[in-house]
């Protein structure tokens, strides 16, 4: 463990408010936050949390940095992000291992998460030369009409424990090329990965003579989070977390006419049709439901399977679950680590009790694995007689609900019945069924896939969902537009003053 921490410059006690190499802000009033290894329960290191005073110091730096950063040409901003990607390449393994150490996902997934950071940096470098605006034909003679995209300001990013570094990078790399400094409030469960990333950012910023572009303020939601969402110096808050918290964030930011990008709860389903390739479906369901111990926003939580294949599919999924090695996520061959906190284990067990009260039958798992540690559980499969209240709720744990359907209309109806709308998938070899699922009478989610699962999105597409998932889009495609302000411009290059709509006024 010490080797990993040393490589990333993590000390026994770290400061949780920073704007650059020479801008670590300390306040004696700052409370200690201990980060624990969820696999062992042992403390890893501490962070001194931001206070009102140090939060203000960080914001001041970010707001100041915006004034020069917005005037730096976008392709030059891209060069800074390019160097950030290079610095992350150098530290891919230790940073990935710290992700594993701090939140419990397996090592391959931890390193994969850092790869995602590198990928989005590469994407953002290209994007820095492609922040295109349209030009429109004016209805007035000798006029030119076009639009420009301008930087927005210092923006806030509030991320969750489950992707402690990748979600920040989806926002930060894009925002940086768009000309926006980023102030990051990471999850209180994963403060050390944020400190490690800040060290990398500091080095890159210093190489370019910069500070205040990438900033952190680590602290509780009720302290730092509330300050950020109510801070009118922050024109945009990108929030990843629950629907309940998203509602609070959205209301607070809207009250001051700020903007939000919300990436909230998911309740993702895979429909398995009678003509599906079951080998592919089973492998995909296994990764989607058990990967990251069921703690991804895109985790597969519901299987909606055609009656005629239900018994066979259920049996094959159970056989797959039996092969899952559970243990210390840093060890080779382990496929599932612990849940992030003891509270998460309690939440899972309470949900399982409710599922059974509502007619569910646990066909696999359902138990704590205390021999491995207090936060280990069995991945669990529950056969439901109907899509009851508990199935409508997202429980952030490896619980997979199985349900059956008759025809595809019923499958889509069940699929869309839940309040969330993040990710979805169908397994079928029938083109008509696949197209129906992707059509406007099909899946109501932001992400809809055919013959691949609900999780494991690439950075090139826009990531986000509909309904209670919040409607925000991050990462690829044209998600960058959320980080800029659009300005419509008209230039009159004639010596006349014609009005639009042919209006005559005082002639």
């Amino acid at each position, binding site marked *: 463990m010490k080797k990993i921490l040393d490589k990333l410059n993590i000390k026994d006690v770290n400061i949780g408010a920073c704007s650059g190499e020479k801008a670590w802000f300390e306040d004696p009033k700052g409370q200690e936050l201990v980060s624990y290894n969820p696999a062992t329960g042992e403390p890893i290191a501490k962070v001194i949390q931001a206070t009102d005073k140090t939060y203000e110091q960080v914001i001041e730096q970010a707001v100041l940095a915006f004034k020069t950063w917005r005037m730096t040409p976008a392709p030059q901003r891209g060069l800074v992000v390019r160097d950030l990607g290079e610095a992350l390449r150098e530290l891919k393994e230790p940073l990935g291992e710290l992700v594993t150490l701090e939140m419990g996902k397996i090592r391959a997934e931890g390193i994969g998460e850092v790869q995602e950071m590198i990928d989005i940096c590469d994407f953002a470098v290209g994007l820095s030369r492609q922040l295109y605006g349209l030009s429109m034909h004016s209805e007035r003679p000798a006029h030119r009409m076009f639009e420009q995209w301008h930087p927005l300001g210092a923006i806030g990013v509030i991320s969750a424990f*489950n992707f402690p570094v990748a979600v920040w990078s989806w926002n930060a790399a894009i925002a940086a090329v768009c000309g926006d400094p980023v102030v990051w409030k990471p999850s209180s469960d994963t403060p050390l990965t944020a400190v490690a990333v800040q060290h990398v950012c500091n080095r890159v910023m210093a190489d370019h003579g910069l500070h205040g572009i990438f900033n952190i303020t680590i602290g*509780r939601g009720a302290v730092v989070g509330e300050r950020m969402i109510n801070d009118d110096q922050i024109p945009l808050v990108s929030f990843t977390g629950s*629907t309940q918290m998203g509602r609070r964030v959205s209301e607070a930011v809207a009250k001051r006419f700020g903007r939000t990008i919300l990436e909230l709860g998911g309740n993702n389903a895979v429909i398995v049709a009678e003509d599906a390739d079951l080998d592919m479906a089973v492998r995909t369901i296994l990764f989607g439901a058990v990967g990251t111990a069921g703690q991804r926003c895109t985790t597969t939580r519901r299987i909606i399977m055609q009656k005629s294949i239900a018994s066979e599919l259920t049996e094959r999924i159970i056989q797959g679950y039996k092969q899952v090695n559970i243990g210390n996520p840093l060890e080779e061959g382990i496929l599932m680590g612990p849940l992030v906190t003891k509270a998460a284990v309690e939440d899972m067990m309470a949900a399982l009790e409710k599922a059974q009260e509502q007619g569910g039958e646990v066909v696999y798992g359902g138990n704590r694995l205390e021999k491995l540690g207090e936060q280990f559980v069995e991945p669990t499969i529950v056969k439901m007689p109907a899509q009851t209240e508990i199935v409508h709720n997202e429980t*952030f744990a490896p619980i997979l609900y199985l349900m059956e359907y008759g025809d595809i209309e019923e499958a889509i109806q069940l699929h869309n019945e839940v309040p969330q709308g993040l990710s979805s998938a169908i397994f079928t070899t029938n083109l008509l069924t696949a197209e129906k699922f992707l059509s406007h009478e099909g899946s109501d989610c932001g992400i809809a896939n055919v013959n691949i699962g609900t999780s494991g999105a690439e950075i090139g597409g826009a990531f986000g969902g509909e309904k209670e998932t919040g409607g925000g889009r991050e990462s690829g495609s044209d998600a960058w537009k959320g980080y800029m302000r659009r300005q419509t411009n008209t230039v009159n290059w004639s010596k006349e003053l014609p009005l639009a709509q042919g209006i005559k006024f005082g002639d």
Partner: protein
Amino acid sequence: MHVKVSLDTPVEELAEQFPEAVGFLSRRGVRCIRCGEPLWCTVGELLREDGIENPQLLINELNEHIIKKKEQEGASE
């Protein structure tokens, strides 16, 4: 043992210090943890939002539950 949790306790603190409270409240229709993270409000705000008619009564029961749990753990050590 004295009362540990009050209506003013932040849910973040509750989940960290008394994880057993999460299961106790969830079984009574109050969810402290969403998407794996505690909500930012106080326990009192959460109980009101979830329509609990007598929040103080539930808090008292919660404190009794925590005390019992600690005693059981102490006995088994």
